[in-house]
């Protein structure tokens, strides 16, 4: 018998190491000149900042580490950036787009 699938909610914290599961595809669409997240029967349209964050979701970096990079890049307070990233990734985790 196959192993049971993940049946618990992913909770995103500063120490989480988020990644996109194999069936979720962050792709650049040359025709429309923008990025998409392709998911089962859904297409998400990330804004440019969300794209940056998702590119950092490699299962290796923590949310904290991603926030530090983004805080420097966008010259914004780390605490605010961290909270924003957690909120965005939690929402995506609840839609099955991000795991940690």
């Amino acid at each position: 018998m196959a192993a049971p699938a993940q049946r618990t909610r992913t909770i995103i914290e500063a120490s989480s190491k988020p990644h996109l599961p194999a069936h979720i595809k962050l792709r650049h669409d040359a025709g429309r000149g923008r990025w998409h997240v392709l998911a089962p029967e859904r297409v998400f349209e990330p804004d440019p900042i969300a794209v940056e964050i998702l590119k950092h979701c490699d299962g290796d970096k923590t949310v904290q580490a991603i926030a530090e990079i983004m805080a420097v890049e966008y010259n914004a307070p780390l605490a605010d950036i961290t909270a924003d990233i957690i909120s965005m990734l939690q929402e995506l985790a609840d839609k099955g787009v991000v795991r940690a």
Partner: protein
Amino acid sequence: MNEIMPTEKIAESSEAADLSCARAPVGMLCELTHRCPLQCPYCSNPLELDRVNSELSTEVWQDVMRQAADLGILQIHLSGGEPTVRKDLEEIVEVAAKVGLYTNLITAGVTLTRDRLKRLKELGLDHVQLSIQDVDDANAEKISAYKNGLQKKRELGAWVREFDMPLTINAPIHRLNIENLPNIIDFAVEMGAGRIEVANIQYYAWALKNRAALMPTRAQVMKSAEIVEEAKARLKGILVFDFVVPDYYAKTPKPCMGGWGKGIMNITPQGRVLPCHAAESVPGLEFDNVKDKRLADIWLNGQAFQKYRGTSWMKEPCKSCPRAEIDFGGCRCQAMAFTGDPTNTDPACKFSPHHAAFVAAAESESGVQTPPPFVYRRLGGAKEKVTAE
């Protein structure tokens, strides 16, 4: 399947182009065949089914996949009938994946073997959508006219988990299974699904023919909405819900297909390109075939796509309605089926002069204690006398 494939925004952005305004469709539904071992009385296929010897060849489907990617289509839904009865499904999926399309297999799960699923995954199949009729064996058998289907679906579910593929359970809901909704949701969790479509039947084609046997009561629909809301909260982060309401009990129509010729196109087994799978029920439309024309030309210029694209075809009450670009007047096929004129507003809309009769039809049919027997979906079945016991 889900009637449209919505797009969602991640975060806010003023500079993000709205995908739904882009000229290319986001999704394409490919009805590879009308053959199916099941005979569900709510099938979305037309009453006149395409025959096997008229189906498109492997090469044409492969070329359609290449054209679709060039056009800018992002996702393809391989459907039917039962798409796995085509022995060349693997060859079609292989090309689709290679050209970068997100591939979704929509299956009843009774004919797919473990080896074929494994091969499909290796070739790049992204997602499996498995339809169920009910989680009660006898009832599932009655609905589909197929023995031991549920057991086969459980097996397929186990293989999907074994190969670590994402799974959606599609549950068409109607009067015969609506009381089992909590068990249907439990089944999806048990199968490891990440999504469930609690899809109240939309009454076209076979479902319209069987409406009196399928329509749930308003009270049942309200109760099912409560069940879904409770389950959504309880299963947050575990199971994503898509809840499709039956529009007979709605006040505003659904934005059918997200707008005619806006986000989705549909290809029949013979290669006709439709704005929606029921579009052939609307008179006055000319459907192009992928054997004769390029997909991009059909999408941009085809008469059937242009006819009801946008809002310029509308008359009142749609024309001056503030929701004109929200729901696009609802569904042309339903307007045709119920009012005899496809340019009328959808009778699901409270502003339609036909709305009261539309609601009354649902209420009276669902209120009958013993519903009529099913007209099962099979070749020529719509012309037969009723055959179910």
